[in-house]
């Protein structure tokens, strides 16, 4: 099997265990956009500390690991306008839809949640169209 797929599967298992810890431990759904968004718009003030700790782990753990292993290349586009537009779309979209790849995707699909599955279908379709349009038609990414 392709080593990238094995790393993907192993990393995926860790992501699922992370979600299981948050669910079985704190009784909460591990959705990155909801955890971060609640801090940004003030809607998550009642459990802000839990959110801050989650985000701290999410930032610090990869930082700590990459100090030893070296950091992988992220290949983020150098086109600043593309980055800004993409960031705005991701921020607005995930908050309007109440979830992203972790909340609707990982946590929703595993619960056989109808809304999670529908959200995932729409963001994958839109993501695919976006890549086709901006890469193959317009050539900007």
């Amino acid at each position, binding site marked *: 099997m392709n080593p990238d797929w094995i790393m993907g599967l192993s990393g995926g298992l860790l992501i699922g265990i992370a979600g299981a810890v948050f669910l079985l431990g704190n009784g909460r759904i591990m959705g990155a956009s909801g955890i971060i968004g609640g801090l940004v718009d003030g809607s998550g003030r009642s459990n802000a500390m839990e959110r801050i700790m989650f985000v701290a782990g999410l930032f610090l753990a990869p930082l700590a690991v990459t100090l030893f292993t070296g950091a992988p290349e992220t290949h983020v586009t150098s086109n600043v306008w593309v980055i800004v537009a*993409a960031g705005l779309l991701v921020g607005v979209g995930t*908050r309007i839809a109440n979830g992203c790849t972790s909340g609707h995707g990982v946590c929703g699909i595993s619960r056989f949640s109808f809304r999670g599955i529908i959200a995932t279908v729409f963001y994958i379709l839109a993501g695919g169209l976006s890549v086709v349009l901006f890469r193959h038609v317009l050539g900007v990414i």
Partner: protein
Amino acid sequence: MRNLLALLSGSLFGIGLLISGMTDTTKVQGWLDIFGAWDPTLAFVMGGAILPMTLAWWLTKRIRPLVGGSFPPATLPEIDRRLVIGSVLFGAGWGLAGLCPGPSVASLSYGGTGGMIFLAAMLAGMMIAPPLKARLDSPVPAA
């Protein structure tokens, strides 16, 4: 306890995103790009993540959360404008940059200026979302 578990969960999530390759935008865009050199890695990541989570959801029917309280109730199987429009906007941005909220924070320390600009724009988007959300919640005006 609650905060320690959140720190542990965030840390595992971050390391999982790092080693799975999901902070590399070319792998995400490569999975979405069915007309290019298609990269199936993301499917392995999703599959790997769904396995422990399925077990966890099964356990929620038998136990209580460790810190007490109750598990989040299931949502009604209803689709509304917010879910569809929000997901389409999110997907468009996800394809455009190859980043979603989790990986944007996980790769902040090694993603360079581009990664920082993305995160700043995403937080700005999250800040302006509540009024848009409220507008989408209001009933559709008669045509």
